[in-house]
């Protein structure tokens, strides 16, 4: 699978899981569906950005830093919109970004180099 596909799949899957953990917070349990949907979209956006970056950079360390940053930034935006539960949203969101970055580099296939034709 290409790096972008892996990043989208991992970002989306982790977004769903991350959203589902809201079930442990009783006061937001009633909004679980909306939280899961929002978290999934956040994961997909993070995945797309990380996948594009990974394809361009083709280096693990910068992709991990970028993934962590993107995860943290998107989680911060959600937390600011929510106005509460900063730690509960930002810490896991950051880890999701890091995980997505790692999985993208570890399991995504490098883009094939353009081949030269000798005439």
């Amino acid at each position, binding site marked *: 699978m290409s790096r972008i596909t892996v990043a989208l799949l991992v970002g989306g899957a982790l977004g769903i899981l991350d959203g589902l*953990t809201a079930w442990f*917070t009783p006061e937001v349990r009633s909004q679980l569906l909306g939280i899961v949907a929002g978290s999934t979209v956040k994961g997909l956006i993070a995945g797309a950005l990380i996948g594009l970056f990974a394809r361009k950079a083709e280096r693990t360390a910068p992709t991990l830093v970028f993934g962590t940053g993107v995860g943290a930034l998107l989680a911060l935006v959600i937390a600011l919109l929510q106005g509460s539960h900063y730690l*509960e949203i930002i810490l*896991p969101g950051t*880890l999701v970004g890091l*995980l997505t970055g790692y999985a993208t580099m570890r399991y995504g296939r490098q883009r094939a180099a353009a081949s030269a034709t000798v005439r």
Partner: protein
Amino acid sequence: MTRLDDATLVRLRDALREPDLSGTRYRLLGPVGSGGMGTVYAVEDTELGRRVGLKILDLEDAEVEARLRREASVLARLEHPGIVPVHDVGRLIDGRAFYTMKLVQGEQLDRYAAREHPLPERLRVFLRVAEAVAFAHARGVLHRDLKPQNVMIGPFGEVLVLDWGLAKVLDDPRPGANGGAAARLRLPGDTGEGAVLGTPGFMAPEQQSGGSAAVDTRADVFSLGALLQWLAEERPPAALRAIVRKAMEHLPSDRYPSVEALAADVERFLDGAAVSAYPEGLLRRAARVAARHRIALGLVAAYLLGRGLILLFTGH
């Protein structure tokens, strides 16, 4: 009468041994090494202005000359980065045959392996050797003398398989073309079908029994297994031991069917994947998969731990 000292005698003897390259386009630079049938010199190609290696017979001998020429023609059909290219074939004014090739600089695999190198690095060198041998097999050529001394590691990490003097050309119909003029354990003299070609310890059992006709690509698989065993550390992991065991099975039919299959198993071992030579139980398989994905599993564990701690300390 003046007596000559030892140093002068050695210089005189070396001067007598030096080939006379007059009449050729080459200028002698110095000896590089010697093998079973000849000596390799570094020479300068005066027309192209480059240094090349010149292999020349130590003695004028029709049978050994045929072998040298055959080695040159075998090399000429094997254009591969892991195989030394031949440039030219000719004869010196003293009648001895020679061929020139790329001047190989670097160190032999035995010297390379005598130093500390991590197992994955050694296995990657092995894979490069296997790649060159697989290419030769695809061109219908068996090496038949794979051993550490016949592999050279270049200064930029390039891996070259040398000494194709015992090579067998699978589709060569000429009588004696497949080593008939070769040596018994590298000693000139023993010739013909039934001659034992190769190096003990690295030679397949069917080669040791002297049946040249019975030898096929799986003889090189055996030698590569011996090379792998030699390259692996003293106590290699069980899966690698199983690969060596399968490559070095007594019966060719029990070995890997091809060099590619052997190399694929070594690559799988390097990737932490399951190898065909080593059937594993559920627990061992789980341990291998966990080891292969340890960083990803570690990150998942960190995520779950983070979630757990948040739950523990904030109550939600």
